């Protein structure tokens, strides 16, 4: 397909690498799938490789691994208490996956897995699914008390419960859209400004001089996008922890 090199949407295009068709469903191995595999492979390899020394005094790489491990552990413990620690592998996987997928998106020509709503939505549904599933498994129907805040007068209780339910149901949407929209918007903005540099430079000397401005903007945005990539992974993980807290402690 012919593409304008400055087209900001082109970077989100999915291409089949290995077409796989099962029944009516297209399960092709795409560039998106490739970067999911890369994310998992690189992250696992990094975590495995840096801890190979099992150093009592950690090396630089081992420090990074240990820091992310303890960072996530503290995040979960603060939000959901010790009882929530059984979800530590889950939260750590989510955090590392989103973080590395986001950061991979910052590499030129790399596909950003998390810039597709369906991926972030699937992750959000997984989180909410775990919350609901564990909540019912652990507390039975009593878990539904999570929608009934204590200390609310009876006459406004129906209203409050309705609001609680609506807010709970909007969680997967807000969780997934926040991450998706941040990554999408950031990458589009970056590409638009970078595109300015290209198209202005084509206009001659004056254009080249003028393109310095969007170039500086692109540099600044790149730094900002690195921040956003890390921050959104953190936000996703923190919200996951807080939602898991509802599964562990339904009475709030």
């Amino acid at each position, binding site marked *: 397909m012919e593409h304008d090199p400055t087209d900001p949407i082109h970077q989100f295009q*999915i291409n089949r690498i290995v077409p796989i068709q099962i029944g009516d469903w297209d399960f092709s191995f795409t560039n998106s799938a490739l970067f999911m595999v890369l994310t998992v492979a690189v*992250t696992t390899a990094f975590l495995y490789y840096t801890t190979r020394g099992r150093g*009592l005094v950690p090396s630089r790489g081992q420090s990074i691994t240990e820091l992310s*491990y303890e960072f996530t552990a503290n995040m979960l413990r603060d939000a959901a208490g010790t009882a929530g620690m059984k979800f530590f*592998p889950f939260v750590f996987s989510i955090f590392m996956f989103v973080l590395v997928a986001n950061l991979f998106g910052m590499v030129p020509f790399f596909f950003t897995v998390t810039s597709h709503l369906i991926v972030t939505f699937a992750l959000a549904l*997984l989180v*909410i699914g775990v919350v609901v599933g564990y909540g019912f498994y652990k507390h039975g129907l009593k878990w539904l008390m999570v929608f009934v805040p204590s200390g609310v007068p009876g006459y406004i209780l129906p209203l409050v419960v309705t609001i609680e339910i609506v807010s709970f149901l909007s969680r997967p949407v807000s969780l997934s859209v926040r991450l998706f929209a941040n990554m999408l918007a950031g990458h589009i903005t970056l590409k638009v400004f970078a595109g300015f540099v290209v198209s202005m430079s084509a206009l001659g000397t004056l254009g080249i001089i003028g393109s310095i401005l969007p170039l500086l903007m692109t540099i600044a945005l790149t730094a900002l996008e690195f921040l956003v990539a890390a921050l959104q992974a953190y936000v996703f993980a923190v919200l996951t922890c807080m939602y898991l807290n509802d599964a562990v402690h339904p009475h709030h």
Partner: protein
Amino acid sequence: MFVTQAYAQDGGTTEQLPSEVHGVQETHHEGSIPASEHGAGFPPFDPEFYPSQILWLAITFGVFYWLLKTVIMPRIGGILENRRDRIALDLEAAERMRSDADEAQAAYEQELTAARNRAHAIATDARESAKADAEKERKRLDAELNDKLDAAQARIAEVKRGALAEVDQIARDVTDTILREVASIEASQDEIASAVSQADR
């Protein structure tokens, strides 16, 4: 719409995935985006690749989760645990060493006190024995001097007695001479002796 999807995917099993995906696709068919035009429109909202993305996400994330849970996290946890243990052990050892040092210090102090006491005792003994020796010496000298004194006094007495005897003799001779020369009386030696001893009284 999201509610049903949420509960549909909660199972998380791959068998359930197609129906879920189907639901998403249908939603978009009903929605504003003409979904059948592949490659057209905005890629993140293009449902063409939803099944593939969900499947591969499930596979990769599943593998990732499994790897972290079974391999990576026990490894990191082990390292941290090991370090915590080691630190605790080292602290314990340090504590033990400190108590050892304290004990040694106490023993040293005790030893020092004992030694000091012993030294004191030895000094006292020495002083006592020196004092006793001095006393004995003094007594010996005293006795010696007393002996000498006694001897001297005895000699003095003897000399005195001898002198007195000579004085008697001289007195008798003087008396005899006086009687003979002055009074011309011839007195016997016995009479003179008794007269002198009477006058001596």
